[in-house]
């Protein structure tokens, strides 16, 4: 059997290496990487957009192209994470933690190359596992019932406790807010509207990607404007970055490989996917590291581990597809659509009827990952140029790009409104020290947790709930892991506190004045909102659909109350300095311009409003902030820059992808 697979693999390799196949592969990789980089274009979207082009190709070439787009898009998210702290994909959220720190330290290029090498290595691991073990792995993956998915997602959630030592409560509250956001829309137990308050737009719930872009991209852009520097990060090109990234990779090859294998396995579970894989991989690598404190402060391992895990998922997601015909991810499901259109039925039958095509496809993934290093290297090099652009141009460009990205996901202006409001809130979260990553984790894991909780309760009609939930072997494994994962950081924090000298009695006094501070008022608002949701949950028709909201908003009330209590005990803080007051004003100006543009879309058309938004932001920066004298030449230059940026977005989204945007007086 082994030699059989090997010879089929070699035959597949040779098949895949025709010049036309390689050309299609390179195009697919480039499309995938660039699509993956842009906030708002999900991996699924990138693949779906490419499918019509494959209709005219031969089945083999079509599969090679789709595999290349899939691999490229999964990696591409890392670039934006690292350079501007804006994950291009939900699966790159963890990459931003260390990646952006590296950029701030002037090591952007190393981080980009490390992410690239790790992604390719993850892809190769995934392909090898797919090739050799797909049959046994698929049957292991089937052992995962809804109760195992539930506990696995809870395990992912326990990451929150260890993410930011010293602010456990705030991270947990952020997680509860994310979980709470995921309950709005249709409830998974019966598709009945929940917490939509009569709004038709809320019926579809918040799109996960829109929230991600808001949480990271918009809030980050607002945070950047506040700083005094003219550029996002100081950046000097030091030759040899690729070599340094490579040696960092070789140095950590063991841990990266292990996370790659783990990522492949998580990828085989239908419904888990790259985001869950990267969260768990990052968290576990940090837990078992000799020096866990280095994570989150800019270490290359923190970039390589999540990237390796999420790219390994590509191979993993194809395991159940190849062995059983079940797509392991939504991206794999879209690929099935493309395959069916070709007259190919993926799954076990494919190995019987078209084994040549099946092995050519798997082998092509191997080559695609090797080629990805070359294609990705060129794109990453170009991307670093972003850091040479003054932030006064970057900020409006990213904000307008996020708007068109959010719009294009579901074609509704409501998502743009959600983007801007959630972005503004996320900025406030940053200010009150509530980590957006926590919210993101809640948003990703919330639907998985609730859906599987309800399915398990429903399955328990035919057996007992305790038996399913607590005493099945996989449940027990994840329960123990979750308990460890929760207890360990709490214990460490407790020990750290004991080492510190006890505060004197006066320092521990209760200060009611602390409660009228801005951040305390915010936490109070969160507390009140959570209470409102608990009351609203009581009015829901179906009992099942209220279980998860009760739990989530209850946690929200608990943690916000706890934070308020802690703040009562804090020493008094100084008020706002004049600089900070000014920063608030600048943020409000930028935010106001963006909201104004949102309103104008209906009258002017989407791109005209975006042009105006960009132009006003540039003009505000030049004439108000930098106080340059107003001249026609300056005006013309700003208009030209805005026209170039918005024109490029127009060409890419409307002309190339075919997104239809609202038209007013103009486009």
């Amino acid at each position, binding site marked *: 059997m082994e030699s059989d697979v090997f010879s089929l693999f070699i035959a597949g390799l040779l098949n895949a290496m025709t010049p036309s196949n390689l050309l299609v592969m390179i195009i697919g990789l480039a499309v995938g990487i660039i699509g993956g980089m842009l906030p708002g274009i999900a991996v699924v979207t990138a693949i779906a957009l490419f499918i019509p082009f494959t209709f005219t190709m031969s089945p083999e070439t079509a599969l090679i192209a789709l595999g290349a787009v899939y691999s490229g898009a999964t990696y591409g998210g890392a670039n934006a994470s690292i350079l501007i702290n804006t994950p291009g994909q939900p699966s790159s959220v963890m990459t931003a933690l260390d990646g952006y720190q590296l950029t701030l330290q002037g090591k952007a290029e190393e981080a980009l190359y490390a992410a690239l090498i790790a992604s390719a290595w993850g892809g190769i691991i995934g392909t090898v596992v797919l090739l050799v073990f797909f049959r046994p792995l698929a049957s292991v993956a*089937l052992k995962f019932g809804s109760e195992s998915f539930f506990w696995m997602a809870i395990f992912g959630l326990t990451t929150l406790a260890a993410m930011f030592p010293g602010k456990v409560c705030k991270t947990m509250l952020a997680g509860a807010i994310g979980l709470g956001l995921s309950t709005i829309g*249709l409830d998974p137990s019966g598709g009945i*509207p929940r917490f939509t308050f009569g709004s038709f737009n809320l*019926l579809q719930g918040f799109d996960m990607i829109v929230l991600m872009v808001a949480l990271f991209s918009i809030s980050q852009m607002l945070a950047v404007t506040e700083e005094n520097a003219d550029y996002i990060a100081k950046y000097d090109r030091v030759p040899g970055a690729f070599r340094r990234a490579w040696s960092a990779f070789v140095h950590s090859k063991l841990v990266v490989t292990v996370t790659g294998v783990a990522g492949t396995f998580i990828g085989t579970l239908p419904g888990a996917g790259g985001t869950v894989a990267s969260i768990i991989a990052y968290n576990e690598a940090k837990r078992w590291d000799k020096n866990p404190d280095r994570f989150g402060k800019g270490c290359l391992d923190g970039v390589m581990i999540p990237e390796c895990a999420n790219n390994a998922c590509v191979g993993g997601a194809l395991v159940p597809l190849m062995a059983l*015909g079940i797509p392991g991810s939504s991206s794999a499901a879209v690929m099935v*659509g493309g395959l069916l259109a070709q007259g190919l039925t993926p799954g076990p039958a494919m190995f019987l009827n078209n084994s040549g095509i099946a092995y050519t496809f798997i082998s092509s993934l191997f080559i695609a990952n090797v080629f990805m290093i070359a294609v990705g290297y060129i794109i990453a090099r170009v991307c670093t140029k972003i850091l040479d652009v003054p932030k006064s141009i970057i900020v409006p460009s990213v904000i307008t790009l996020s708007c068109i990205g959010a719009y294009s996901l*579901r074609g509704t202006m409501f998502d743009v409104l959600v983007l801007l409001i959630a972005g503004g809130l996320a900025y406030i979260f940053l200010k009150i020290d509530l980590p957006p990553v926590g919210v993101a984790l809640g948003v990703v894991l919330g639907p998985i947790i609730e859906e599987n909780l309800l399915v398990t309760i429903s399955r328990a009609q*035919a057996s007992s709930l305790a038996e399913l939930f607590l005493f099945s072997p996989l449940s027990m494994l994840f329960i123990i892991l979750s308990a460890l994962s929760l207890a360990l950081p709490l214990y460490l924090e407790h020990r750290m506190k004991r080492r510190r000298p006890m505060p004197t009695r006066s320092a521990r006094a209760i200060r009611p004045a602390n409660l009228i501070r801005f951040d305390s008022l915010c936490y109070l608002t969160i507390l009140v909102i959570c209470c409102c949701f608990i009351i609203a949950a009581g009015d829901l028709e179906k009992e099942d659909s209220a279980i998860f909201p009760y739990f989530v908003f209850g946690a929200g009330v608990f943690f916000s109350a706890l934070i308020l209590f802690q703040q009562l005990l804090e020493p008094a803080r100084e008020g706002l300095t004049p600089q900070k007051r000014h920063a608030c004003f600048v943020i409000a100006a930028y935010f106001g311009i963006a909201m104004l543009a949102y309103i104008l879309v209906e009258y002017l058309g989407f791109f005209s409003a975006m042009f105006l938004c960009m132009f006003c932001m540039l003009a505000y920066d030049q004439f108000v902030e930098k106080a340059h004298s107003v001249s026609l030449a300056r005006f013309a230059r700003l208009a030209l820059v805005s026209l170039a940026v918005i024109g490029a977005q127009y060409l890419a989204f409307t002309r190339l992808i*075919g997104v*239809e945007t609202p038209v007013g007086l103009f486009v």
Partner: protein
Amino acid sequence: MSLEKLAALLMTVLFTALPAAAPAADYPTKPVRMIVGWAAGGGADLMIRLVEKEFEQEFGQPLTFVYKTGANGAIAAMDLKSARKDGYTIGSYCNPHLVTNILTKKGQYSLDDFSYLAQTAIDPAFLAVRKDSPINSVEDFVRAAESGKMLVGCIDYFGPTNFAALKMHKAGIPYSMTSFGSGPKTISAMLGGHVDAAFLMTGTSMSSISEMKVLAIATAERDPMFPDVPTFRELGYDIVNYLYRFWMAPKLRPEVEQRLADGLRAIYDRPEVIEKNARAGLQVQFLDGATLRKNIEASFAEAEELIEYSNSLDNK
């Protein structure tokens, strides 16, 4: 018939047909927007993509795709309802979703808001167990359900698979039901032994059909894809449930509606189109707009009854 009479008849036909044909002759003069209420690459998308080229040949204008996903298609239906009624916005939709969205108050529209152009594909529900299950027939299935606790998986809430499961339950077969939300998840739960049997749909299951045993199919007559599988009707259960996919539009002027309906009929008359659909796992079953509308109206009563039945089970 004499030659004069024939000529006169021809002239009458021509003259009565002309005014109707004249305004339609200049439709379409620009690309037609196609609103798809489900994700790209899914069944609703695939059905249209497969005839994208033929549409352009027939109408001389291409289709542009807009994906309005969410709320089980209710978002797309609302969008279609409020679109301009000029024939330049049409949609790919399916039932029972059209009626269940009204019944569950997700969609604020009525059946009169739309023109029904043609039904082009069906996706029948069927009952299956995994390959190594001791159950080999519906008879075995019923016996197993009666002798112990049996758990049956469905794909969706208030979709064809759920309706089929509810009907069988209503016929007195005791089992519990769980909906998983998507085809792949239901199939993995069944293959992994987390449910004893499952009601699935052909479209999303064809790739893993070799891993399961199909016990019975919910079509009126035997399905050409499964010639050896009995229908539920043959076995004494009145269960006919399938997803039917169709082309619809906001209420159009009759002549534009006619032009679209005729064009679609011409497209789906081509044998290569049917073959292409079959290769993609889509079963073409063409019905004209009037029959389709009648079927949709008829499905209302059944859906209402089954939703009520399902709610009564939940409240127990």
